[in-house]
């Protein structure tokens, strides 16, 4: 695929998976401003897991965030019956259904329309690097690209097909960066909606800089997680969600974790 490259930047911030976590979003945007980034990008999934879905949209708009659609955004905007998260285990799907029904019924029609108008991909230039942004993978919106299950051969194929040197994705909830032979890079930028199953309560976003070689920095975001956990409980969402926020260990949606990523977690 050969497309006109998008606008050019030197330094950008990229995050994924807001999951209704307005508190982390606010903290992350403030942190990115202090880091002198020229633009802030979101790779989708505004809803899910957390409380008060409509609270994230003013922050995204006022912060000038350039977003793309995730599977959640696609489902919410199109009125689909489920989140399209791609789980196969019934316990995972049970919790996914609770999140989705909660989020869907509390997202305003204006915000649904805003989600529906988001593009599926974005292309930018970061110095000399052609960057492709997607949610899951360039080919499937809810494809899981875990560090331990994404082969180099597949990444090279994605970059070749997309005429890009840098692939940015999210969806799994756990960040990683892999330089590829030549000038290629694949980066899963992580999510700011929930901690990444390492026993820490902070969440993560990514700053990319063209120096002109690509520099990838994962940035921890510390936010008021205790308030978020209380809001989750006040909204009647599952206590498992609040436990994850307070402990940093995933308690739900674990069954599609590959063995290596699963082994690092508590459950």
């Amino acid at each position, binding site marked *: 695929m050969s497309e006109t490259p998008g606008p050019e930047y030197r330094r950008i911030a990229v995050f994924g998976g807001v999951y209704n976590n307005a508190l982390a979003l606010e903290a992350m945007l403030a942190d990115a401003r202090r880091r002198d980034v020229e633009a802030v990008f979101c790779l989708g999934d505004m809803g899910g897991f957390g409380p008060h879905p409509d609270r994230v949209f003013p922050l995204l708009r006022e912060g000038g965030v350039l977003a793309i659609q995730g599977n959640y955004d696609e489902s919410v905007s199109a009125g689909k019956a489920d989140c399209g998260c791609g*789980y*196969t*285990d*019934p*316990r995972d*799907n*049970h919790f996914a259904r609770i999140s989705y029904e909660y989020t869907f019924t509390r997202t305003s029609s204006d915000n649904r329309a805003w989600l529906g108008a988001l593009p599926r991909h974005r292309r930018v230039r970061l110095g000399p690097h052609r960057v492709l942004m997607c949610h899951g993978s360039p*080919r499937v919106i809810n494809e899981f690209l*875990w560090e*331990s*299950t*994404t*082969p*180099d*051969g*597949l990444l*090279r*194929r*994605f970059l070749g097909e997309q005429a890009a040197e840098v692939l940015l994705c999210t969806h799994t909830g756990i960040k990683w960066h892999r330089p590829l032979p030549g000038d290629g890079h694949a980066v899963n930028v992580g999510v700011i909606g929930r901690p990444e199953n390492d026993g820490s309560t902070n969440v993560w976003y990514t700053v990319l800089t063209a120096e002109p070689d690509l520099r990838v920095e994962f940035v921890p975001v510390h936010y008021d997680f205790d308030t978020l956990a209380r809001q989750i409980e006040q909204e009647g969402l599952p206590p498992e969600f609040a436990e994850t926020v307070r402990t940093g260990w995933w308690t739900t949606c674990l*069954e*599609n974790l*590959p*063995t*290596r*990523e*699963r*082994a690092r*977690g508590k*459950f």
Partner: protein
Amino acid sequence: MTPVPRVGLPVLERMPAGVPLAPFVRLTTLWIQITGTWCNLECVHCINASGPRDPWLAPLDGDTIRRAIGEAEALGVKDIYFTGGEPFLHPEILPLLASALEVAPTSVLTNGTRINARIADALAKLAVDAPYSLEIRVSLDDVDPDLNDRVRGRRAWARAVRAIRLLDARGLLPIVTATEIVSAESPDDTRMYDRFRDFLRSLGLEKPRVKIMPVFPVGRLAGRSTERLAEDDLAGFDRGTLQCAETRVVAAGGVYACPILAGLPGARLSTGDLAASFRPAPLYHPACVTCHRTGMSCRNY
């Protein structure tokens, strides 16, 4: 139904008129039918009627497998699975797993009976050294030894449970795979999952992993259903979501559309290389009805 014997070109079977097709979308998953239908167990529900006597589908040699792995890498494969028969009967299983793990995350489906401490140690070393995840799937059809062994044979439960413990003790987090042969519950029903998870926790596993598969009318259960898909059944259905749209299986005799039907002439798409099998797959078998109805995938998740 005479296949055209031209190596490297697709084999076009004469199908009944009106058989619906699944498109070829991409190669996501490569399955390797490493031991064909050679197995040390003879389960009553086996999808390819594997057993210890005169396997109707021959094992593959190591060179054929290494060639397929190399080809799949160049085609951008995402994951590789080894199945059979019983893969751990193959004399080269460990080096072949190592070769696959150099290319992609790799899973092996086993009945667990051949996994002793030495094999478990070797698998743990492979998993640590490899750039990608190694998944071991151990088949167990019931948490009750008697019920399980009625399906899988004498002492199958004890030997599978030993394998599960050995693997878990080495941090390999086996995925215990059950078929709904004993229970009539549906895959959406969590009771079967819960029963298995509770059982695995009782063995001391802190991270129990379970996959439930439906029963297929194929292999030893062929004839349970003669129902077949027709075009009308698929109206409005996205056939690209079927596993045969992004899966290919290397087995004796060629490349097949699906691991359930590997070895059957009707499912063979090429007698040569992998790329030659990239064409629509006929949804001709009663097992295709089960896939369509349940949305199942033979992949781990």
